[in-house]
């Protein structure tokens, strides 16, 4: 009981508090162990088995871990989805938040992506996605494992299973314009035609479309030097009505998708084809650029 006068520091009560604290802890601990003994999910007081916090990494052992579609939560901060499909397939629809990591047939993995994955917190799950959860995703997983990334899974059934389950799809917008702007100042023109067809100019770069190889680094460096300038991708063929789904991939659409997945945000595809060069000295593509 508190009986101090209005001018006293209650030393006795402050000391008694420690006795009360000791009693509280003793009673609570006794109640805790009694409750643990009678409850259904009680745990043993002394644990003999080690905590199974870390396990051997399956990818190091050569096994491929698979994750079912219903278990994938792309918004979980401890899960990172990477899409091993080509950029045009990625642009047409991907798991929300997935990073593009196209597995080209004849090129190594993007080192920047590997560095980003390797720098994530320990315990982050990296889920590799392809169209069907097949060889492409497995190849990507093995390449990532060899590069030192851990916690790897292949999405079982790939994007086909994701779509069948009615899950949310994110698309990458690639605006289409009917032709090049009249005023070419301040823009970059990317020529998706095969090499040596058009001479380079200060306003245009050649980036021939190749579905086996990523864009050349030198060309990307030139484009990144003028990052603020919008990029217009031209080709010698009319863009089909639904370029995202048309196969084979339209060269202009393919290059545009590659550039978008590489981080270029202002990329446009020109629908009208360029005129072919005239062998008799008539209007040339050079003129068409003017």
């Amino acid at each position: 009981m508190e009986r101090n006068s209005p001018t006293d520091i209650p030393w006795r009560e402050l000391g008694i508090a420690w006795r009360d604290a000791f009693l509280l802890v003793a009673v609570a601990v006794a109640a805790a162990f009694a409750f643990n003994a009678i409850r259904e999910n009680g745990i043993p007081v002394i644990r003999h088995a080690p905590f199974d916090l870390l396990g051997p990494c399956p990818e190091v052992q050569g096994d491929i871990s698979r994750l079912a579609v219903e278990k994938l939560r792309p918004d979980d901060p401890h899960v990172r989805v990477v899409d091993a499909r080509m950029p045009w397939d990625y642009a047409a629809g991907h798991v929300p938040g997935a990073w593009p990591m196209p597995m080209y047939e004849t090129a190594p993995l993007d080192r920047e992506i590997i560095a980003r994955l390797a720098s994530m917190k320990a315990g982050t799950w990296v889920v590799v996605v392809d169209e069907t959860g097949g060889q492409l995703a497995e190849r990507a997983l093995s390449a990532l494992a060899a590069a030192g990334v851990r916690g790897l899974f292949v999405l079982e059934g790939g994007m086909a299973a994701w779509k069948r389950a009615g899950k949310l799809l994110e698309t990458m917008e690639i605006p289409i314009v009917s032709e090049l702007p009249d005023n070419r100042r301040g823009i970059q023109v990317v020529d998706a035609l095969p090499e040596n067809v058009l001479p380079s100019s200060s306003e245009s770069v050649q980036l021939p479309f190749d579905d086996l190889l990523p864009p050349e680094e030198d060309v990307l460096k030139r484009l990144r030097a003028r990052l603020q300038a919008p990029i217009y991708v031209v080709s010698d063929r009319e863009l089909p009505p639904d370029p995202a789904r048309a196969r084979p991939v339209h060269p202009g659409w393919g290059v545009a998708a590659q550039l978008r997945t590489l981080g270029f945000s202002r990329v446009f595809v020109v629908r009208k084809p360029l005129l072919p060069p005239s062998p008799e000295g008539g209007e040339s593509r050079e003129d068409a650029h003017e």
Partner: protein
Amino acid sequence: MSDAGLLKKWVGAFWNHPAHAGVSLVIRWVVGITFLVAAWPKLLAPEDFAFSIALYRMLPERYVHILAIALPMVELFAAVLFLAGFRVRGTAVVMCGMLVMFIVALAYAHVHQLEMPSCGCFTPAGARALADHAEEVGTGLLWRDVAMLFACGYVWLFDTGRFGVDGLLRRLAARKEGK
């Protein structure tokens, strides 16, 4: 009256000021509810809580369950007593003790960033434990616990339990004596 006497009188008057009762009531309810909310999931799933304690790697693994069993119940008892205003000073001491323990653990985890061997990866249970406590490795919760430590220290020093069961029992006893 001498200076020392004046000082003692002033300190005593401050120490026993009736305003402390109101401030302490607010503190007790905020801290009490915080501890109640924290204790409940730990009571429901002691195995998961044991994993979380193991993640900090501060205790030998064989004794982790002792803490996993006892701590939630101590939190629950302390929270209920704080809310009820019974034995508030003693409960405040218990709260301070638990908060010091949490602060040490959080500071340890923050300093060590819960580093794992580079060749290891989490089992589902380990990943779940880390996901549950990943945010605690930051400093936000650390400063929250430091603030609550000061608040509970205030209650220990200044709260007489006037607004609570302690005060009620005191008034009943006084009335009985008065009769």
